[in-house]
């Protein structure tokens, strides 16, 4: 809307930069989408062309018995749900206690919970394997969910504690006077008011769990019957990297759900990323 005041030379320069760069950025998406519908020889002779399109390669990928991406959707979706539930059940009441009763000890607890945010997964994974093995949870979904839910603790506390502080305390006062127990008054009165913060954190957790590779790859292990979307693509494509009629359809299946998720929830997602940076 302020464009008309801009000198035309700069407006032109803007498009000279943006259009080619944008095309480069879209190139992989275009190549993945069209080649997911082409047999190998058509990909090899004309990777950008639109001829010889067929549904066979993508149907092969959908029906593939090993490292099936559709089965991966199921495992990853289960992980997403379990990690979000554990994360909310563990973090929201704790954030409530910390937010409502400020004290030096609680400040230290909060710092302790934030500390994990800066430690790379690759540093933690080998000792985590040792810990999981000692308690008999190595190779199990339960162990993986606990590790992934722990990853969500810093961001959750970071979002929930200030949010609960912005909810007037009179609200839980009123609930306490009506005789509701502390936990019940939290879940029935405070928690519903926290919805915007919970939704934001769950969206960030969901993309995090969906894209995660190291933890499911190592904790579930190569012999596991469980494959997430990311470990399935590694198993499906890794050994056949030169057979592009396997590579492209599997890639399309892997990237599609999260791209749709982005299109549907882009405002919350971008807002969540910006919000998680403040402070």
């Amino acid at each position, binding site marked *: 809307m302020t464009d008309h005041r801009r000198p035309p030379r700069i407006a032109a320069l803007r498009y000279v930069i943006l259009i080619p760069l944008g095309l480069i950025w879209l190139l992989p998406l275009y190549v993945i989408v069209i*080649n997911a519908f082409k047999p190998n020889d058509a990909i090899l002779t004309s990777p950008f062309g639109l001829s010889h399109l067929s549904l066979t390669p993508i149907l092969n990928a959908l029906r593939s018995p090993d490292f099936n991406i559709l089965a991966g959707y199921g495992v990853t979706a289960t992980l997403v749900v379990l990690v979000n539930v554990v994360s909310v059940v563990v973090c929201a009441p704790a954030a409530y206690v910390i937010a409502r009763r400020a004290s030096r000890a609680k400040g230290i607890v909060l710092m302790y919970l934030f500390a994990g945010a800066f430690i790379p997964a690759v540093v933690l994974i080998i000792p985590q394997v040792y810990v999981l093995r000692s308690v008999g949870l190595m190779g199990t979904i339960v162990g993986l969910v606990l590790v992934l839910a722990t990853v969500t603790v810093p961001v959750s506390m970071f979002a929930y504690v200030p949010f609960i502080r912005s909810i007037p305390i009179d609200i839980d006062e009123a609930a306490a006077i009506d005789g509701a127990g502390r936990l019940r008054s939290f879940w029935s009165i405070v928690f519903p008011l926290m919805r915007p913060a919970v939704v934001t954190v769950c969206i960030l957790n969901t993309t995090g769990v969906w894209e995660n*590779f190291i933890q499911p790859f190592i904790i579930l292990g190569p012999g596991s019957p469980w494959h997430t979307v990311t470990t399935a693509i590694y198993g499906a494509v*890794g050994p056949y990297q030169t057979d592009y009629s396997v590579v492209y359809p599997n890639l399309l299946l892997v990237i599609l759900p999260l791209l749709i998720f982005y299109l549907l929830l882009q405002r919350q997602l971008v807002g969540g990323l910006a919000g998680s940076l403040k402070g």
Partner: protein
Amino acid sequence: MSTVAPSRLRDGVRELGRRRRRGLSSGRSRVLDAALIGLPVAMVTVFTIGPVLLAVYFSLTDWDGFSLTSPFVGLQNYRDVFADASARSAVVTTIEIATACTVIVTCLSLALASMLRRPQSSNSIYRGVFFYPHMIAAIAVGFAWNALLGPHGAINTVAAQLGVGPFPFLLNPTWAVASVVGVITWQSTALGLVLFVSSMQAVPEELYESAMLDGAGPLRQFRWITMPAIAGTVTAVMVLNLAAYLRIYELILSMTQGGPAGSTQTVAYQILSVAYVNDRLGKGTAEAVLLFAATMILSLVIIIARRKGDESE
């Protein structure tokens, strides 16, 4: 001024409530509080802080991966890391990639954000175009670009039909490192772009309009209005991105497998795909501890450097 009074009022109400609550709080509710806080504390202790301490401990022992009582070897694992040519080259590669990407991605996302900061619909389409790679798992990004850049990949096929190439994107060590830097740039410009745009949109448009009336061009507007306003976000994005680049693993695994000739092996790749797979756990954990220390130190360096830069203005 008008916002101060209600917030003070709210603090007062809150303080009153707090006092009343304290009077009410019984021993039972304290136990409940402790239990509620105890859950996340226990998880973080068992799966984050504990493992960091274990990593430091294991890095000082000849660890077999199973027992806590492996023989203590002091700093031998660290000496092994520094004596190992492939570990040294992984450190150099990681630092090269992380430095190049931090510089390129910061500049590119700043440039794109200042071009796309206004909320018009064409800009939001461009923002989507530059953001979508953020929504693709790194392991898939690596496979996709391998299929594009490989010797029989899409780009070399078309180049051959046009009579140029072949380009050794993944076959020549220098090209391979540059390709990795390019792909990381493609994927991670997204984060800086959206975060810079959201903090640029908080800058009042009148500032730009009056600067334009005073004859300041886009570059001077960027230098004297945009940069000071978003300095904190720039620091935060640089630290976040750098930390991510230092632990690059999945992309290497799917795009180059560390090759050619180990030229794209990063520290994280060596820890998981060399040390862990070959049961060289003492050395692997030593590398992990060094990686953690390097992440912390470099992040601090960026924060201090940026703070100094801001003060000198």
